[in-house]
């Protein structure tokens, strides 16, 4: 076991304690031992100077696709977990639409074991709602929970049978876990490959109307209301579904929701040129939808940011738009994109952003994370909110390169990530080298 570590002089952001102040933080035995201004360094402590940087609870992503088992050419649990910590995420919830799917306790155990072996981010399995993700027979949800699953979902597909959704929202109440819903009416989506509107018409691509999501979100909210179960709506993309969730919350329905960084940042204009890196489900929507989901995130109608990290092999994207795979990676760009759009855009302050990226998602999935309270796991992200950097997909830790932010300048970057007090990602050396280079060239000049 390593000795105590004293993280000195960072601007500490902890939404759970409504804290935004320069503080020192002492980590002992992988847990937070003390948080106070000017802590004297214990004798054997490693002292890390973080002045000028932000420090917050590590980010929590309740929606990632790590592809293992079955899709190791796209991502593995280890590569996905390394992408997570590079993006400041210390806990991630892995969706069950793998091959085979995570629909039995052994599969849950496999994901957990792989995650533990990687020793990077904490990987929490999400179990399937239905056996084989087929939307027919409910899985042994109790067994999945006992094995370590933290929620259930058929994500990738909607639970199209309303009766099954009802039973899942009833039965999960025994365990007080949420059902994560990919809300989509596939009849309305049809063969659609992008948002339906003027851009799809101009490009001659089949459209997915907003109603495809709205109808399903409305149905799920009504079933949650009927049953009293805990519903979590994945990747909200439309103004209409934000409105439906707002109304459901006002009626006291137990519903939470997430939005992805790409739906906060981009419209369907990004598809022009048949850019398959802008193809995902749900699709990028119109400017008014983007404005509405931003508002909903600010107001708390949408509770948190989740990436829907969906890596693909380049061959699955390097093809005709109709035939290209749905999905984009997001773990390594989430902070830069969200901070740029929401904080620089003047909609959230940094503390609120951390709340949406760490505290709220931890609460939704019931994870021991998202707080710097005494005794909490020392799961920590250190980031520079002002660092400008170019998104270079070829430098990703993820095996997936499929990002619509390729080449774009992002603002806000992770410097260091700790899980259980242990450094799992560290760019301080690189930053020091960069500063030295700048200094030398300034001296020469």
């Amino acid at each position, binding site marked *: 076991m390593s000795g105590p570590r004293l993280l000195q002089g960072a601007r500490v952001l902890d939404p759970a304690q409504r804290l935004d102040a320069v503080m020192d933080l002492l980590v002992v035995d992988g847990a937070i031992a003390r948080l106070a201004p000017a802590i004297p360094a214990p004798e054997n402590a490693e002292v890390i100077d973080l002045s000028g940087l932000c420090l917050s609870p590590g980010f929590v992503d309740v929606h990632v696709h790590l592809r293992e088992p079955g899709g190791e050419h796209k991502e593995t649990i280890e590569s996905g977990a390394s992408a997570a910590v590079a993006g400041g995420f210390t806990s991630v919830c892995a969706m069950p639409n793998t091959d085979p799917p995570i629909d039995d306790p052994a599969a849950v155990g496999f994901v957990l074991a792989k995650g533990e072996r990687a020793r990077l981010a904490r990987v929490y399995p999400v179990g399937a709602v239905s056996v084989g993700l087929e939307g027919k027979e409910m899985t042994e949800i109790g067994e999945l929970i006992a094995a370590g699953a933290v929620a259930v979902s058929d994500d990738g597909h909607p639970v199209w049978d309303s009766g099954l959704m009802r039973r899942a929202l009833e039965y999960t109440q025994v365990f007080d876990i949420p059902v994560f819903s990919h809300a989509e009416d596939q009849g309305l989506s049809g063969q659609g490959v992008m948002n*339906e*509107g*003027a*851009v*799809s*018409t*101009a*490009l*001659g*691509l*089949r*459209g997915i*109307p907003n109603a495809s999501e709205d109808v399903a979100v409305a149905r799920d909210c009504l079933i949650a209301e009927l049953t009293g179960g805990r519903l979590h709506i994945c990747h909200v993309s439309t103004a209409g579904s934000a409105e439906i969730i707002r109304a459901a919350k006002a009626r006291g329905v137990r519903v939470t929701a997430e939005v992805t960084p790409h739906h906060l940042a981009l419209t369907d204009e990004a598809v022009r*040129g*048949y850019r398959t890196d802008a193809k995902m489900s749900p699709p990028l929507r119109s400017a008014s939808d983007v404005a509405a989901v931003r508002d909903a995130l600010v107001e708390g109608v949408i509770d948190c940011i989740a990436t829907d990290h969906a890596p693909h092999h380049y061959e699955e994207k*390097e*093809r*005709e*738009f*109709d*035939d290209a795979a749905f999905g984009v990676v997001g773990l390594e760009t989430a902070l830069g994109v969200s901070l740029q759009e929401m904080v620089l855009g003047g909609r959230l302050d940094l503390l609120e952003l951390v709340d949406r990226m760490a505290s709220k998602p931890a609460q939704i999935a019931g994870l021991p994370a998202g707080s710097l309270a005494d005794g909490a796991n020392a799961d920590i992200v250190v980031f520079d909110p002002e660092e400008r950097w170019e998104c270079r997909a070829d430098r990703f830790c993820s095996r997936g390169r499929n990002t619509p932010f390729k080449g774009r300048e992002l603002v806000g970057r992770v410097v260091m990530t700790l899980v259980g007090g242990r450094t799992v990602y560290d760019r301080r050396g690189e930053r020091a080298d960069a500063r030295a280079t700048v200094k030398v060239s300034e001296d020469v000049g």
Partner: protein
Amino acid sequence: MTATVEFGKDLTGLERLTAEQITAILDVAEPFKEISERQIKKVPALRGKTIVNLFYEPSTRTRVSFEFAEKRLSADTVNISRSGSSLQKGENLVDTARNLEAMRIDMVVIRHQSSGAAEFLAQRIPSNVINAGDGQHEHPTQALLDMLTIRDNLGSLAGRRVCIVGDILHSRVARSNIWGLLKLGAEVAVCGPPTLIPHGVGDLGVRVFKRVEEAIEWAEILNVLRLQLERMHAGYVPSLREYNRVFGISEARLEKAPRDILILHPGPMNRGVEIDSHVADGPHSVILDQVTNGVAVRMAVLYLLAGGSPDRAEAAKQEDRS
């Protein structure tokens, strides 16, 4: 004069062309029409150039028209079509592109079932790429020949009222016509069953008629699209009979028009479905002119993309025919 108009490497659609570029193509097509009337229908403008006609979708009509255009300009042509080639064996478009590139060809004419396929190919190979129809996106040479036909018959496109009738949702012909006609100053409308009118089409700058009678009342030109049989099976329209009853262009309907209406159809026609035979073969039908103009327009596009200068088109056809 058109002498200063420049063309890019490819023709993937009319959306990106300027009015000057479109006009230049139509102007160049004029002198080329005469070549097809000659005893020896050949000029050496593209001698030594290799053109591949890459057809992922069957289309006798468009392929034959391109082939005539290529041969009349003395190009060497190769046809690759879906049946009996690697296209059938699941070779993807990227690999096909790389193979074509390795064979050092000069031009590719591509027809593909996916929107964006022509652009996809154009970005990956140095050869000129001409879109002969990509999914539901564009079919630029069809729109060019439609416009040339209207211009031949009515003198100019500016201010003309053109209504495209039928399955707009799935039609690349409609999209290319909309872009091209709007750029040349025409007024454009679309008309068809609401199940086959794409969402947001009004944002492109066209008006929408739900009833064909209103379209006939308004239009000077009707471009009648083919109704694919599969649309009925997919539930967009209940039956062909009903489609004919509600949207078919018949003599009885045209008689009520306040003016003579020029009738175009990109073919092949379903007589008795979207258009009645009396109209198709009637005095205001220019459907066969379209076929003739198709070869001339494609010659113009090939000539201009190969680097031919618009003001030398007249001279090009005079060159010796040996």
